[in-house]
């Protein structure tokens, strides 16, 4: 294992997003604040999802996880795609880095981006509503598992894409709908049966549900199931991603 090589690529990926924090950290935090402002203030009197939890409080964990999901994906997909397009990825490909080292570096950087954005949103949102913390370890666990899953998916999208359009399409037609329809703004138990059923096939639902459990000790689904589904998603994405790297898909052909 070329640890130093892995660490350098990882550090470079983190460094890259830290060089443009306005776009990579502050913009997503601002987006969430706008959601909170609009939804929480308009709907707070009408909606109560869990007993003893205000709508604004209910909303915050979902919004944090949604930001983690979207940013972890954006980090690896845009970085990989950009260096593939500008061509400077060749220097990484010329280096003695294995597929695993390459994969881990991108995924680990996505996790860091997820954590940083998640913390940013948390700190900003805390002023809007009271939050409790049921379990720190569950919060951390779901943050890491979810952002790693999306980091891996981002690598897959970055490999697959051949134009910026493709990256945007992945973003807008996969990540965005799935993260919106995953119970960020509502409890899936309030949905009509059909949509309720469908939601249970959406991995993002379990990411958000497990994460919310970490705050309130309450959730739509069982924490065990959520943990299982999210772990399984991570494994599936990793296996697919490593296989694509191994065959050099859109990379060495």
């Amino acid at each position, binding site marked *: 294992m070329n640890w*130093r*090589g892995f660490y*350098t*690529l990882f550090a470079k990926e983190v460094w890259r997003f830290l060089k443009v924090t306005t776009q990579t950290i502050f913009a997503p935090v601002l987006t969430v604040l706008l959601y909170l402002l609009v939804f929480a203030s308009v709907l707070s009197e009408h909606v109560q999802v869990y007993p003893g939890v205000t709508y604004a409080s209910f909303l915050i964990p979902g919004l944090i996880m949604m930001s983690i999901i979207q940013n972890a994906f954006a980090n690896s997909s845009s970085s990989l795609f950009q260096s593939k397009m500008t*061509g*400077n990825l*060749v220097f990484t490909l*010329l*280096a*003695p880095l294995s597929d695993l080292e390459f994969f881990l570096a991108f995924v680990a950087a996505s996790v860091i981006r997820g954590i940083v954005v998640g913390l940013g949103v948390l700190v900003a949102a805390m002023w809007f509503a009271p939050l409790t913390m049921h379990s720190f370890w569950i919060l951390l666990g779901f943050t890491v598992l979810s952002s790693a899953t999306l980091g891996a998916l981002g690598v897959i999208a970055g490999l697959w894409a051949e134009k910026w359009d493709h990256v945007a399409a992945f973003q807008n037609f996969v990540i965005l709908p799935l993260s919106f329809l995953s119970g960020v703004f509502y409890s899936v138990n309030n949905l009509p049966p059909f949509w309720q059923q469908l939601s249970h096939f959406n991995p993002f639902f379990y990411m958000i549900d497990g994460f919310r459990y970490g705050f309130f000790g309450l959730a739509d689904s069982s924490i065990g199931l959520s943990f299982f589904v999210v772990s399984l998603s991570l494994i599936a994405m990793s296996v697919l991603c490593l296989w694509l790297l191994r065959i050099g898909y859109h990379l060495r052909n």
Partner: protein
Amino acid sequence: MSHAINIAKVHKNYGNLHALAGIDFQIPQGSFFGLLGPNGAGKSTLINTIAGLTYASTGTVEVMGYDVRSQWRQARKSLGVVPQELVYDSFFSVIEVLRLQSGYFGYGRENYPWLDELLDILSLTDKANASMQNLSGGMKRRALIAQALVHRPPVIVLDEPTAGVDVELRKMLWEFTKRLHNEGHTIVLTTHYLEEAEALCEQIAILNHGQLIALDKTQTLLGRYPYRLLRLSLSLDFTLPTLPEALQSKVQSFELGELVLRLHREQDPICGVLECLRAANIPFLDLRTEEPGLEEVFMQLTSDREILS
């Protein structure tokens, strides 16, 4: 294992396009090797295959005895590649790019003095902290060369390093590659400047349509071409059709009163040609013979193939 690079039966297909059609040759260790061929011949594709940037459809490539697929880690450590395109990461400065690249190869701070030395050799020290995107084209080219050398590879491949650079930089790059060669590195160079290949390379391979059409010592390759050129300055009222029948087939070019004839060393003695001109009453003001350059050899070899195929 005296080969720096061993290319065995390499084919590369892009859909229906046979970009490399059975390439098979070796590059000896310590040699200065030229890879020539017209646009689209497959030079870059071959280099990418050597570098593991593309996988061959069939066939194998070894760098310093390491298979580029199965022993990729050692193969990549043995190879430094300067790509044809000016590619760079606009997020980072020159020194940052070099340090990152050195890190990918597993080096830490202990390698920094070498990176500073590279900047110095390539006259980039005062640009060390400039962002890559703010460098001129020539500076970017030098930065890419430095980037390819961070791990002191024994084999160095340069894909058209002197394309679009000014005379001074070209001279500097010539000196630099010669110096690397003298230090024992194997150098592989592609270029469209034939005088460059002639001046630098000990051995030359010529590629055309994905096939190897010549591979020899530069001198032997030049010697294999049994022609020389006779350059005649004629009066301005001369027109080509007035040239005697016997000489028509030997015309290489005619421009601004300068006629260039291609003569076979044995079969076309110069006095015979002059005789012929006198008989046709064509006066000339000056004459000069020229030894062929790679240019002619190259044209001949690539056009022979064209006729055959």
